[in-house]
């Protein structure tokens, strides 16, 4: 058998006791088609190099050939676990380019839906993270609760995964009848379920042993690498776009931002988990103070923004989703650049993985919650 090292030389060469292992793109815990090239000594990782691009779909180039509204469904496919937040990032950018005034109610609905999406996304993260660490049951529990949110979204816009609900100038439609009641039921259910998750997994002794002190990133390193979202806050940096650079109607609400201290797997996971509670609190606030009115501004059929460029960013469940949009005055965007938090966080992987073992590797990948659709775009 020809060793892989002979086919593709490893930079720096393999040490005497070292082995080159391909983790992925077909591996149960790389969350999709991520390939990590591991140089291991026994099970200890000497070097980890992520290799991305297996899911590349030319999103940015394709967007240039489509009109502004047509790009909205495309953005769904970037981070398919939290499609709503992606749409929001994109439509906010277009609105900024147009200088469009969005109705008040639409802004509040956007907050409501984005936070529901955040809970749904974090539930998927929680389930898969537990799965990575060998606990299968939390996954089923988390998916069960996520189902409630997907049902809500289905009632809202007919789709369960790729919604195209956020529109340029507002949202597609108002809340359907019964949405408010069902959301309140969900809010009532969730706290006890979150406690159940804690008892089952987050406060489990084995879980603590597996996650404390693993994959540490200092606050300085996190900032230097451009980390954002829970990955950044896990290292103790108090930065949340929803609070520090509010968009939509976030400035009208109180937001609790959970922080970690050590920047290890445990703290990142803690941040994500507590964010679910914070989001549920936020959803309740929105439901209490939802204004009446239009949900969509009048926009021309063919959108031709004036020439110019904007950068707009939102806090997605994974971190900062940024959209850099350039218009040349035509009906299609001249350039769409997507800043995906998963892609940025993946660069932290070599730093986090070094010196740990393969078993920790899956915990680390789980803790930064990457979505390969977003990494490769």
């Amino acid at each position, binding site marked *: 058998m020809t060793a892989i090292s002979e086919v593709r030389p490893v930079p720096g060469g393999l040490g005497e006791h070292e082995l080159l292992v391909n983790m992925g793109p077909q591996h149960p815990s790389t969350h999709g088609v991520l390939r990590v090239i591991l140089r291991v000594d026994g099970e200890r990782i000497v070097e980890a190099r992520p290799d991305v691009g297996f899911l590349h779909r030319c999103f940015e180039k394709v967007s240039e050939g489509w009109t502004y509204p047509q790009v909205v469904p495309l953005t769904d496919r970037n981070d398919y676990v939290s499609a709503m937040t992606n749409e929001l990032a994109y439509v906010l950018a277009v609105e900024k380019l147009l200088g469009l005034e969005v109705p008040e109610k639409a802004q509040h609905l956007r907050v409501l839906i984005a936070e529901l999406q955040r809970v749904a996304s974090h539930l998927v993260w929680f389930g898969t993270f537990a799965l990575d660490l060998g606990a299968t*049951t939390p996954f089923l529990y988390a998916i069960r609760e996520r189902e409630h949110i997907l049902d809500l979204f289905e009632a809202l816009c007919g789709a369960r995964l790729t919604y195209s609900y956020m529109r340029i100038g507002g949202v597609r439609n108002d809340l359907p009848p019964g949405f408010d009641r069902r959301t309140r039921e969900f809010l009532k259910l969730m706290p006890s379920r979150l406690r159940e998750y804690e008892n089952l997994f987050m406060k489990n002794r*084995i879980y603590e042993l597996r996650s404390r002190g693993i994959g540490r990133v200092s606050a300085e390193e996190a900032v230097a690498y451009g980390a954002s979202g829970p990955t950044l806050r896990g290292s103790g940096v108090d930065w949340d776009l929803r609070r520090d650079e509010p968009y939509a109607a976030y400035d009208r609400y109180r937001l609790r931002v959970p922080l970690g201290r050590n920047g290890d797997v445990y703290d990142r996971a803690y941040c994500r988990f507590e964010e679910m509670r914070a989001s549920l609190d936020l959803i309740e606030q929105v439901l209490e103070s939802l204004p009446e009115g239009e949900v969509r501004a009048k926009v021309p059929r063919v959108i031709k923004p004036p020439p110019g460029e904007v950068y707009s960013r939102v806090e997605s469940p994974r971190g900062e989703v940024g959209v850099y949009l350039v218009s040349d005055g035509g009906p299609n965007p001249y350039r769409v650049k997507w800043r995906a938090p998963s892609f940025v966080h993946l660069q932290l992987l070599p730093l986090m993985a070094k010196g740990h073992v393969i078993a920790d590797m899956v915990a680390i990948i789980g803790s930064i919650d990457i979505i390969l659709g977003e990494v490769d775009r």
Partner: protein
Amino acid sequence: MLTDIAARLQALFDQVHLWCSQSAFWSGVFAVGWSLFKVVLIIAFMVVNVLVLVWLERKVSARIQSRLGPMRVSRPHGWAQSLADMVKLLGKEDIIPRSADRALFVIAPIVSFTAALLVYVVVPMGPSAVVSDLNIGMLYLAAVTSFTVMGVLMAGWGSNSKWTLLGAMRGAASIISYEIPMVLAVLGVVMLAGSLSTTAIVQAQSGLWNIVLQPIGFLVFLAALFAELNRVPFDMAEAESELVSGFNTEYSGLRFAFFFLAEYANLVALSAIGVTLYFGGWQGPVLPPLAWFLIKTYAFIVLVMWIRWTLPRVRIDQLLSFGWKVLLPASLVNLAVTGIYLLWV
């Protein structure tokens, strides 16, 4: 009526035995035939149990995870699922990787399976229902259970794949750290019974079960059992989310079925041993011994499954340090306490 049939069979058996013992040749044939009959009986018992267990595991896990589990293959509750699975596995292509070490690759599943089979020899299912009441039963057991790892190691090395190799190395590395505490824990029971024979151990528990006298020993035994059975939280050699599927990644079809069979056969065997050592074996009121044995064994198995579907997995080095720093001292303390108890009480 059952006792009637049993009596008739006994009579028939006695007659054949008597007739055979008249000549040296026929008594030899009888001895071989009788042994073969026992082997077939064990395998049948094992396979039936495994089929039930695979279904039960899926049902128990489904119950824990608020699902239904298999429902489609026959009613009620898809009981024929395991049969369907087995037929499916038999129909699969038998793949041997080109770069594999053929001999090792082929032998490994058989070694695993045989190791599981050997344990049944000393499991007492009733006062006289034991294949062979060895007077060194527990020693034999300690030797035979270590054999499983041979299969794992051969499969991992023979597949010539990096993931399987890592799985095999984990299996080999962890075995000492849990086998020693396990044997030491079992020694406490042996001291109480004053015998290595499994039948004697069961009989010694006619008054009080060992679980009452040996709680620490039992916990050590239980922890080591999970490592021995390759189950979460100690499923080092398999570790699906880490090592793809560990040592059996490259196996398919019938050979994989053998590993699967061995895994569940081990589950039954070691649960039966657990019941024998700590829960009074086949002893119990009203019901016949075999019924008690099965009830207790299955209760034990459900406990093992329950833990498996609840906990996350520990890391290999954590298992090693847990074995050496927690289980070993605990089993030694247990041994010392048992010794003092026997001396003074």
